[in-house]
Structures are given as structure tokens and as C-alpha cells.
């Protein structure tokens, strides 16, 4: 439970700071616009000197009414909408939504489509972790204070991946690639060579970044023993993904409940041991390497065949799943991304619940920052890697 019961209603005025009568406790606001909050987050902090006593995140600054809007759109129309939830890894959002609808429709997708889904999902995982790494450098170092080195390097590598996506789907960010029944586009000629070139370049780059970070004394001091998460608290809150794997629990949905033919690929699950920010960062960097292994296996073993089990949709109202409810989940770069779908037989969903991993990960923040200094809040928030499109939906 968050210990925010002591913060009074007056704390919610944006620019009010207030000195309390007992000693030098300061109530301060870290507002929705801040260079390091990864988006629109407001944290109301109670500080004693520089040590945090209580913190309460205030969210909702990007609440766009997605779940209500989804009840008014047909299933085909929801796929581009769903891209904009976790906007750093759009393909995974489309993937989980299509998996949920395909479960209701009881459709089997062809093998080629499954391999293409795995290929794009893992490429997206690498791109998402590169964004995380770049912005983590900015958080820890500041834009003009040396953090932008890592930022510029990571975004340069990410541009290579975005070039591949642009070849495959036509867009740099919102792809609209996964469709109900398969995928939408065929890879063009020469795609395999370019993917292999990219893999070679990125493998070298990731080794370089790992040395740059993990052997760096300043990074170690800023992240070791900061924000230690016990597996018990992580499970009770619902955190999963690199956050929970950093605490030592070896649980990955790609291995536990394989979807879209993940059982045919060989890869390891990196884990940490203590659960501090250093372990979570190291888990993500090692995950990037494993994802590149999967990409290599996927592109080399890509089978021939159709890319979609259903004919191309001519009428938007054509997808009508039978009545029922289903919960589908995948391993997104942030954790367990799930879709709970209730259908009543019409072309529009009756209820679409988006189980966002960042919502649960962010609920950990008040528990993890207590006792740390003000500057450590950014290290902890960065290591939780929230994306506010899916926190607020």
C-alpha cells in the first residue's frame, strides 16, 4: 500500500511548497513537465533534507479514453488505435490484440505469419530497450552533462532498426503490421541480407555499451543498491518483465506460455540477483543480445507460405467474434501486456481492458524510493521504464 495517507489535500496544488513544523521536512512537487520524467508524471514528494520520506505519483495527464473509444470502433479500426498505447513498442500492442481476437475466433495463423510476428516483436524489443538505454543516460547524466553521449549512440543504432521497419511496413513508428489472422506485408527482396548486416552491427554496439556502462564506476555507484525490489513485493504489485527478472525470478512469458511459435526458438532468460537498478539495467542489455539471436533464427528459418489466414478485409464490419470473453497476454519489453476482451457477437467489442505493464510497474515507485536521495528517484524511475501512453491509456 502506498503510504500517502499523510499527504493532505493541499498537497495537490501544483506549485505549493510547504515547510512542516517538525524539523526540515519539505513537501515539494515534481511536476508533469520535467526533463527526466519520461513523459507526463507528477510526483508529490515529502523530503527531509535530501532524503525522500514519502512519494506519491499522480498520473492521468495522458488519459485519452482509450477503453471507451474502443467500444465504439470495429476490431479492424482498433488495431491502429492500439499502436498508440505503448508507443515505444507498437508492434507488441498490435500482437496482443490480434492474439486475443484470434483466440475468440479460433483462427490458426500460418507459420510464415508467426515467424514474421516473432521477427518484428524481437526487433521492436531491441529498439525499445535502446530508447530505454538512451533516456537512462539522459536521466542519470543530464542533457548537457554527459548523458547525451549514450543518448546519441543508442538513437543512432535505433535508426538502423527503424530503417528495416520502414522497408517492411512503410512507417517509422505506427506500423499497423499485425492483422487479425496474420500479418499485412511481405518482406521485400534483400531483406534478409540487410537484417543480417544490422545484427552484426548491433551485436558489436551492444557489447560496447555494456562495457561503457557496467564497467563504469560512476554508473555503478549511481545504480548499485538503489531501489532494491524483493520478489514478494514485485509479485504482489503485478510487476513482471525485466523488473521482476532483475530480482532473481526466472519467469518469461515467451517460455512459460509460448505464443506465435516462440517454442521453436532457442534463447536464454537473463536474470539479476539483488533487484537493484544495476541488475535491471544489466538484464535489459543482456535481453537485447538474446533478442538479436532470435531475430537471426527467425530470418534464417522463415518458411514459405501465406502471411494471413483470412482473406484481406474488404468491409470493416467483417470481423465478428462469437460471444465470450478471453484474456491474452504476451511478454512486452516492459512486462506482461494483457488484453481482456468481452465480446457480444457484434463487430465492436463490448469491453476491452488493457492490462498495461507500466501501470503496475509504476505502482512500485512509492515503495522503492523511500530512504533514497532526490537524485536517486530518476535512477529508479528510469529503471522501471514506464511509458505513459499505457499507464494512462
Amino acid at each position: 500500500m502506498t503510504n500517502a495517507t499523510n499527504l493532505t489535500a493541499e498537497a495537490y496544488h501544483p506549485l505549493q511548497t510547504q515547510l512542516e513544523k517538525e524539523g526540515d521536512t519539505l513537501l515539494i512537487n515534481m511536476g508533469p513537465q520535467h526533463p527526466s520524467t519520461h513523459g507526463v508524471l507528477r510526483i508529490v514528494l515529502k523530503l527531509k533534507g535530501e532524503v525522500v520520506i514519502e512519494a506519491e505519483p499522480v498520473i492521468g495527464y495522458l488519459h485519452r479514453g482509450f477503453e471507451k473509444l474502443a467500444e465504439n470502433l470495429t476490431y479492424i479500426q482498433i488495431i491502429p488505435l492500439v499502436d498508440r498505447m505503448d508507443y515505444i513498442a507498437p508492434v507488441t500492442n498490435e500482437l496482443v490484440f490480434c492474439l486475443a481476437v484470434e483466440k475468440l475466433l479460433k483462427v490458426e495463423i500460418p507459420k510464415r505469419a508467426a515467424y514474421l510476428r516473432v521477427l518484428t516483436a524481437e526487433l521492436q524489443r531491441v529498439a525499445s530497450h535502446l530508447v530505454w538505454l538512451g533516456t537512462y543516460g539522459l536521466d542519470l547524466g543530464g542533457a548537457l552533462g554527459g548523458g547525451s553521449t549514450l543518448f546519441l549512440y543508442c538513437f543512432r543504432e535505433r535508426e538502423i532498426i527503424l530503417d528495416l521497419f520502414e522497408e517492411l511496413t512503410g512507417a517509422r513508428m505506427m506500423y499497423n503490421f499485425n492483422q487479425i489472422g496474420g500479418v499485412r506485408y511481405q518482406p521485400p527482396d534483400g531483406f534478409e541480407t540487410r537484417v543480417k548486416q544490422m545484427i552484426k552491427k548491433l551485436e558489436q554496439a551492444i557489447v560496447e555499451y555494456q562495457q561503457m556502462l557496467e564497467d563504469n564506476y560512476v554508473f555503478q555507484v549511481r545504480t548499485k543498491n538503489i531501489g532494491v525490489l524483493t520478489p514478494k513485493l514485485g509479485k504482489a504489485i503485478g510487476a513482471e518483465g525485466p523488473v521482476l527478472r532483475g530480482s532473481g525470478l526466472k519467469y518469461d512469458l515467451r517460455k512459460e506460455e509460448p505464443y506465435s511459435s516462440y517454442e521453436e526458438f532457442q534463447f536464454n532468460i537473463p536474470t539479476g540477483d539483488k533487484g537493484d537498478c544495476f541488475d535491471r539495467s544489466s538484464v535489459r542489455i543482456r535481453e537485447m543480445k538474446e533478442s538479436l539471436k532470435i531475430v537471426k533464427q527467425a530470418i534464417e528459418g522463415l518458411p514459405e507460405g501465406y502471411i494471413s489466414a483470412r482473406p484481406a478485409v474488404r468491409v470493416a464490419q467483417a470481423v465478428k467474434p462469437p460471444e465470450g470473453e478471453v484474456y491474452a497476454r504476451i511478454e512486452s519489453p516492459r512486462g506482461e501486456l494483457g488484453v481482456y476482451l468481452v465480446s457480444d457477437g457484434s463487430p465492436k467489442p463490448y469491453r476491452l481492458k488493457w492490462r498495461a505493464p507500466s501501470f503496475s510497474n509504476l505502482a512500485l515507485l512509492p515503495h522503492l524510493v523511500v530512504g533514497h536521495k532526490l537524485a536517486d528517484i530518476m535512477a529508479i524511475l528510469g529503471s522501471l521504464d514506464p511509458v505513459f501512453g499505457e499507464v494512462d491509456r
Partner: protein
Amino acid sequence: MTQSELAGQIKERFGYDSQLDQEIKILVDPGDWRPVAQFLKDSGLDYFSFMTATDKRETFVLLTRVENLSGKIAVHLSCRLDSNGKIESLAGLWAGADWMEREIFDLFGIEFEGHPHMRRILLPEEYQGFPLRKEFPLDQRYEPYR
């Protein structure tokens, strides 16, 4: 323990039948919401996935999903409430229920008794109305911005 064992234990203690497919689905009365949840937590289901509500026009259906990661057991616990229903909060059992219940209060108006700080979480504090109810229009006005 396996799925059928857990379903059997619930049947003997509380008398509810469950549907078994990929997860165990149980529909309970509002009075048994917290006791069954406590029993599930004591049986080792310590991973709290999500809690949500569906507006079925006459009633609300509240749904919680909890799991045991290593044993691969998942339970969908649901319960029917009427529009002014109140129900006990599960925030004392799983820390993740805290924000999920605030979100359900914000969007549906269902109140949870015993929740430490029941406040709106996604919409502005002074917002009137509960958007995800079926009678609420999608493009509701909000002066002066829309």
C-alpha cells in the same frame, strides 16, 4: 497443487462451482469476495495480475485475476454488483489492488470499503461522472476545453 485440486478445495470450503479451462473461473457473491480472495492468497496465488469491471447495463461484473507463477495456476474471480454496490477492498492482500481499485472507482463509480485513499486516479480530481458506464456518452463536454 493442480487446478482441479484448488477448484475442489474452493468447492468444499465455500460451495462455488468453477469452470476450468486455461484458468479457473469462479463467480462469487459479494459477501464472499474477500474471504475467497484471502483463501486464494493463502493457497499461494501471490501474483496479482489485474482487476477490472464490466458494465452489463443492469449489473456490474467485477473481475480479478491472480496467479501462482511457479505452479502455473491462474484464477479469474468475479462477482456481480448492482449500480450502487459497495464491496470490500483487496488492497490489504495484494499491493497491486490499490491502484487498480482506484481506477475502477474513477471510471465506473464502484466504491471499495477499506481502501486507504479512495480518490480519482486518471481523471482530474473535480471531474463529475463515471466515463466507462454505458450511459455516459463518448464525447462528453468539459468546459472550457471541449
